[in-house]
Every structure is written in C-alpha cells, then in structure tokens.
C-alpha cells in the first residue's frame, strides 16, 4: 500500500491504545478510574457500544480484571487499563489469568509512586510488579511502550500474544506516553494481522480441557461453546480439569505453563537496534526514556562518541540471550530508568562482566532528559 493512502492522525497515547485495542478485536473493557490511564476508559466507553461491545466501570480494579476474565472465558477479547495501586489490586486476578490460562490485556500507565505518589507524573516503578507482583511462579508477558504509535501497534501485538499463548499480557507504558499527543500513521485495517485463540474442537466426550499439544497451549473451550468447560479452577488440576493434590500433576502443570512462554521466545521477544554496528557504548532504554536516548545518541555521535541504542520492547520474559549478545559487542551499557534500578539488575545479570553496566535513575517524577543521558555517556566513556 502506498504511504499516501495511509491514514495519519494526531492522537493522544491513551487514545491510540484504545484505538489499537478496537483494531485488535477487543470488544469488552472493564476498568476503574485512575490517573493517568483514564482516557483509555473514556475512549472505550464511547467507542465500544456502537460496535456492539461492552464497557463496564466496575466497583474497583479487582472487579475490573475479574469482569475482563469472565468476558474472555466467554470468548470475547477483553482488556483493562490502570495505574499505580490499581495495578496492585489487579495482581490477584492477574495470577488467576496466568494460572488458569485466560487471554487478556492489562495496560499499566505508570505514574510516580508509590501509592498516591504524583498522579500526573511518570515513572517506571512497576517493572518488577509486572513480573512478580502476583503470588507464586507464573508466566507473564510484558511489553514496554515508547510512543503513541506503539500504543496503537503494541496494543494489537499484546492482544495477539495473549490469544496465541493464553496468557495475560501487560503493556507497561507511562504518563509521558499516555498523555503525549503525536502524529501517527494508522495501518490499513486489512493489513493488521489478528490472532485468535485456538478453540476446542471435536466431540465433547473426548475433550480434555488441559490436554495441550506440543506447543503447550491447550485449545480453549469458551462458555457457551457446548463443552461444559471444567478446567477453569484456581486449583492445581489434571488433564480433565479436575482439582488434584498429586505432586506430579502440580509439577507438570507448573512447567507446562512456564514452558509455553519460555520455549517460544522467538515469537515473543522483540527489540530494536540503532547505530550499534560500530558502537562502544550502548544505551539500553525502554519506555519513554528511549525518546531522550535518541537525542543523546545523536549529540554524542556529533561529538565523535560511538553510541548506539538497544531498545527493549519485550521486557518480560527478559531478553537474556539478546542482551548477552549486546554485552559481548559493546564495552559499556547505560540503563536509563525512572526507578531506583529494576531492569538494570537484569541487564547486569546478563552482561555478567562482559560489558560494564551503568544505571541512570530518576525518581523525582520528571522524565529523564537527553542532557542527563549525554552527561552519563561522557562520564563513563
């Protein structure tokens, strides 16, 4: 398609997220008001009904993700959006969605915290909460977002990944991106690739809800499909979906849930590289600090410092192998984050001495600037 035919819009990040969700086929949204995510709810409340979709404002964030799970079990692509303590309240059902294999999308527009913090200022304080916030071992996929265009495109990707692997997918954005207005090019709807969960097939008598094929993702019997689906229990359960106290079954289920994500990293991990060919210093950036990193890289290169950027998009599962390869290529890695070191330690773990890793942390509620990154580059070079 010629680029001239593409639709260009000037849009807010949160609105782009909602539009991406609609393009991805999301037809159920439940949420609870919280700054700086509320515009996603506003847009969904206006956009979904004419499409025959459902918007629910629930009594709290627990209820919001619960309703999303109910809609997803009924075969509807569903999502919620939240921030800060709202994301914390969702952790219980996030664990349920992960354990019981319910596709759903959770958007977290991170704000300066903890708790009330500064509701209209950004942070990246939920990186570890996204990974380990809910109890017990569990797989989760989280994508970091750095532009309004990604709010659109990665929302679609997030929905697709959740449908493909029957996992909750978390979009980690922040206040800067949520409230940023910028020009984005919308893809032709016909070009958008949509993924739908595998549905149960064949006679009911032969259907076993937890019988997973080789890829570890069992076909899903949704409510009303006629399978009298029995596997949606938070208990450890066997192939038939019946609760079980057998350690072997517990072990098998735990490992299958883990492996269905960790054995498909080629489908899940994504990142972008900028000017790394000759780089001695890499900025490993994700989310809104990536934008400042671009400016810092350009200025540094004008000064003759060989700097490149490794932009993480999938942050959970953490891209171990690609970051190891990066550490083998450059001598220094700077990790700018709006927290007191969350992804930094993951990078350091993978670099494992092959490259020196330097944190650049800001937690005053202001975005990390290009000048700060440039200063750090000059400091460590």
């Amino acid at each position, binding site marked *: 398609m010629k680029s001239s035919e593409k639709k260009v819009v000037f849009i807010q990040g949160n609105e782009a997220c909602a539009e991406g969700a609609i393009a991805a086929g999301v037809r159920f949204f*439940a949420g609870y008001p919280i700054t700086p995510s509320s515009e996603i709810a506003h847009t969904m409340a206006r956009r979904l*009904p*004419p499409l025959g979709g459902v918007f629910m404002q*629930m009594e709290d964030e627990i209820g919001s993700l619960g309703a999303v799970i109910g809609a997803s079990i009924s*075969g509807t692509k569903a999502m919620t959006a939240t921030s800060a303590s709202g994301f914390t309240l969702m952790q219980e059902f996030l664990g349920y969605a992960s354990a019981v294999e319910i596709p759903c999308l959770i958007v977290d527009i991170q704000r300066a915290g903890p708790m009330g913090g500064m509701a209209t200022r950004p942070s990246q304080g939920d990186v570890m909460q996204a990974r380990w916030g809910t109890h017990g071992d569990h797989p989760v996929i989280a994508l970091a977002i750095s532009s309004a265009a990604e709010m659109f495109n990665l929302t679609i990707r997030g929905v697709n990944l959740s449908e493909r692997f029957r996992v909750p997918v978390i979009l980690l954005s922040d206040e800067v991106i949520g409230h940023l207005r910028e020009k984005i090019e919308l893809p032709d709807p016909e070009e958008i690739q949509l993924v739908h969960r595998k549905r149960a097939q064949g006679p009911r008598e032969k259907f076993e809800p937890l019988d997973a094929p080789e890829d570890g993702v069992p076909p899903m019997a949704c409510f*009303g499909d006629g399978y*009298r689906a029995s596997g949606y*229990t*938070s208990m450890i359960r066997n192939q038939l979906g*019946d609760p079980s106290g057998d350690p072997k079954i517990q072990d098998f289920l735990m490992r299958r849930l883990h492996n269905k994500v960790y054995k498909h990293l080629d489908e899940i991990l994504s990142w972008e590289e900028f000017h790394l060919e000759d780089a001695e210093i890499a900025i490993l950036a994700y989310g809104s600090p990536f934008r400042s990193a671009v400016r810092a890289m350009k200025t540094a290169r004008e000064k003759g410092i060989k700097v490149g950027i490794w932009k993480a998009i999938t942050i959970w599962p953490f891209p171990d192998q690609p970051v190891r390869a990066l550490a083998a290529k450059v001598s220094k890695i700077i990790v700018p984050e709006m927290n007191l070191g969350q992804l930094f330690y993951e990078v350091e773990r993978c670099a494992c001495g092959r490259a020196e890793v330097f944190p650049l942390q800001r937690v005053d509620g202001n975005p990390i600037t290009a000048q700060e990154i440039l200063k750090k580059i000059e400091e460590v070079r």
Partner: protein
Amino acid sequence: MANIARLACRPSVKRIWCAGCGNGTILGAMVRAMHKMGLDPDRVAFISGVGCVGRASNYTDFDSMHTPHGRTIPPATGIKMSRPDMQVVILTGDGDSVAIGGNHFIHAARRNIDITLVIANNMIYGMTGGQVAPTTEIGDLATTAPYGNIERPFDICRLAESAGATYVARSTTYHVLQMIQYIERAIRNKGFSVVEVMSQCPTQYGRMNRIGDAVEMLKWLKERAISIERAKALAPDQLQGKIVTGEFVNLERPELSEEYAKLIERARNRENQRNL
C-alpha cells in the same frame, strides 16, 4: 435436561465435603431447580468461589468456573455481559460473598444484573479451620473467637434488599422443597437474585458450639426457622435466635444486560446519524 446426578457430580472428581455437610443438599437443590425449569445445561454458567462450597463448580457438569476467594461476581458479570443468553448461577459461602466479596455483592445488586447467587450460610469458615465469619451470631465460639464472638452479624437478605437485589429469599437445608422453589424463582427472575440458605457445618460450627452432629443441627435449623408471615406478628426480642425464612423481595426493575442492549442500539443510531 440430562441426568440430575450427573449434572451435580461429574464422576471423575473427588469430593471433599464432610459427612453431614449441607453443601450437597444445596447443590442438589440448585440442579433440581434447573432440571425442573428445563434449562439447557449448555447454556448454564456455574460459578463458585473459595471455601468448602467453592468446590461445587468443579463437581458440576456445566461450563464452570472456580474463582479466587470472594470473586465470583466480577467474572459472572463479564460472562453475563458478553453472553446475555447464558444463565449465570453462583454458589458461594457466607465468607466468600459478604466478607471478602462484600463489595462486589452490593454492586451487583445495585446494577440488578441477571445473576442468581445462592449463599450457603453456615456461619463459619469451614475449610480453613472454623474461624469467625461476618455471619456468626454474637456469643458463638470460633477458632478466632475463643471467648465468644462480639461482632454483630450481617442480615444478608436485608443487605441484598437495601443494595437493590430484585429477588431475595431465605431458606434452610432442612426445608429442601422450599429451597428448590426459591432457587427456581431466583433463576426465573430477570435481575440480581439472592437465595440465602442457612446450612449446617457439623465439623466446625456444630462441634465448637456444642449443637451436635448433622442430624442435631438439622433439627436445630428446623426449630429456629420461622416464616416471614409468622415473624411479622412477633416483637424484635421474640425473634432473637430465630431464622426468618421466606421471600423478602420479588419485584421487577430494569436489568443491566437488557439495558445495555438498549444502550448499544442508542449508540448505533447516534453513530449512523452522524455518518449520514
């Protein structure tokens, strides 16, 4: 509708309820009510929470969901709103529905969403070891109230009524035919319906409060039960220790999923006019 026994207990599942527990009576009553109504089992979503009675959904042969503790209503809301053709029924306990799940309970009643909530109220947390519940009577003993409970219990039916439920009834595990009738009316009601069933937990409540075994507890429920009509003639102090049974609310009010269908129509019309 297929075999009642099969609907209430899938043969592959191990059942964990104690001998003499009231849960089986209540689950049986629910399935009998649905059978009597001729409901298509493929169009029933059966949801339960956590606790002894929470296991019920695993036993049944419907589309079933066993939610986190206290969270039956939010997924039920999502199911009803995306599949309004499904009959959504919940079997929950007193702790599950009005302690940890109390917020969802009042809001579902306020919304009058077409969900039927059957509450097995045994006035105690059975599975976790006999702890005090928000339904335990003052003075009763529990493992976390060894000197006697001092907190006033909820009247679940009055709570449901004041929050907006459009069908509210109370029965006991002794009054099985009445219970089946109330559950049937609750499912038929297009709106949020609550049936509270006073039930026996001989293992925890009965033993700790020296009421006796399951038979003694059923007698105890029978003796304490008084119909709503007879209760009207009595003064509040004469109702001390009584279980008032009957239908407290049965009225029509706009139901959420039906109202939402109208909202979709309105939104579509507005969109069409804008596009003209």
